[in-house]
C-alpha cells in the first residue's frame, strides 16, 4: 500500500506532470523504475478490494488507477517500442473489465510488435473472455511459433487450461 501512496504523492507533486510535460529530461532514467512501480501496482493491489473498502479507499483506488493509466498512455505515446508498457496498459484495462479498451491497446501493440510472442500471449488472454475457442487456439499457436520458450509461461498454462475447461462446457 505504501508504494502506491508514494506513487500517488510523487505524481501529484510532480510539477511536470501537472503541466503535461512530464519526465522529458528524466524519462530515460525513470522508465524502468516507473514500469516496476506499475507492475507492482498490478501484482500487489488487492483486486476487488475497492468493492468492500470504505469510500476513502475507493477514491484512492480510482485515483491511483487513473494516474497509472495516464502515465502508461504518456509512456506509450512517446515510446511506441515500450512493449511492456503496452502490455501493462492492456492488463490494467482487463483487470478493470474494460474489454474493448484492452483489445484496442493490444491490437495497436500487435501492429507495432507483430513478432512478439509475449504480445500474442497476452492477446490470447484478453480474447479468452470472448468465448472464441478456435480463435484463442490460433493465437496461442502464433505465440509459440514466435517464441517457443513461452510454452512454460504461467499465463500460457492458464489460457490452455481455461480453454480446455471451456471446451468441456
Amino acid at each position, binding site marked *: 500500500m505504501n508504494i502506491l501512496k508514494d506513487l500517488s504523492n510523487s505524481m501529484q507533486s510532480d510539477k511536470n506532470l501537472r503541466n503535461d510535460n512530464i519526465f522529458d529530461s528524466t524519462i530515460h532514467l525513470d522508465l524502468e523504475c516507473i514500469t516496476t512501480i506499475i507492475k507492482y501496482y*498490478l*501484482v500487489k493491489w488487492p*483486486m476487488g478490494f475497492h468493492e*468492500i473498502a470504505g469510500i476513502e479507499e475507493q477514491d484512492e483506488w480510482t485515483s491511483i488507477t487513473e494516474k497509472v493509466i495516464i502515465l502508461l498512455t504518456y509512456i506509450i505515446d512517446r515510446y511506441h517500442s515500450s512493449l511492456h508498457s503496452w502490455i501493462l496498459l492492456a492488463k490494467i484495462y482487463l*483487470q478493470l473489465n474494460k474489454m474493448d479498451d484492452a483489445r484496442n491497446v493490444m491490437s495497436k501493440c500487435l501492429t507495432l510488435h507483430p513478432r512478439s510472442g509475449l504480445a500474442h500471449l497476452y492477446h490470447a488472454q484478453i480474447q479468452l473472455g470472448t468465448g472464441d475457442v478456435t480463435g484463442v487456439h490460433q493465437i496461442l499457436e502464433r505465440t509459440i511459433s514466435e517464441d517457443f520458450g513461452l510454452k512454460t509461461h504461467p499465463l500460457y498454462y492458464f489460457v*490452455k*487450461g481455461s480453454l*480446455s*475447461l471451456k471446451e*468441456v462446457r
Partner: protein
Amino acid sequence: MLDEAKSFLVAAIQCKEISDDGLPGSNYIVSLDDRLSCYIELGKTLLARDELNALEKVSIQAEKKFSGLSKSFHFTLFRSDILLKSNEVKKALHLFTNIHHVSSSLRELFLFQEGKLTL
C-alpha cells in the same frame, strides 16, 4: 479435456509467479487477478471432475491466500458446493449466507433453488 485442463492449471499455479506473490523483476507480467483466476479455474475443473478432497484443499489454501478480496468468495462457494454434494445443505447454506460479498439477490436465488428443503 478435463484432464488436460487440470494438468495445465496445476502447472500454472506451480509457477513461482503464481504460487508466490509474483514480485516484479521477472519478464512475466502476472497480476494478482491472474493468480486468483488460475485458482478459480482449477477449482471449477476439480469440481467438474468430482475431486472433492482436492477441491477442498485448494479452496482452503486459496481462501487464505486471497483473503479479503471480493473474488475470493468463489472459494467459499466451492466449499459450499462440496457440502451440497454431501447433502450437508444447512452447513452449505450457512457458509453461503456468510459470504458478505454475495449480493442479497444471489442469496435469494440460492434460497429459492434450495427452497424445497426446510430452512
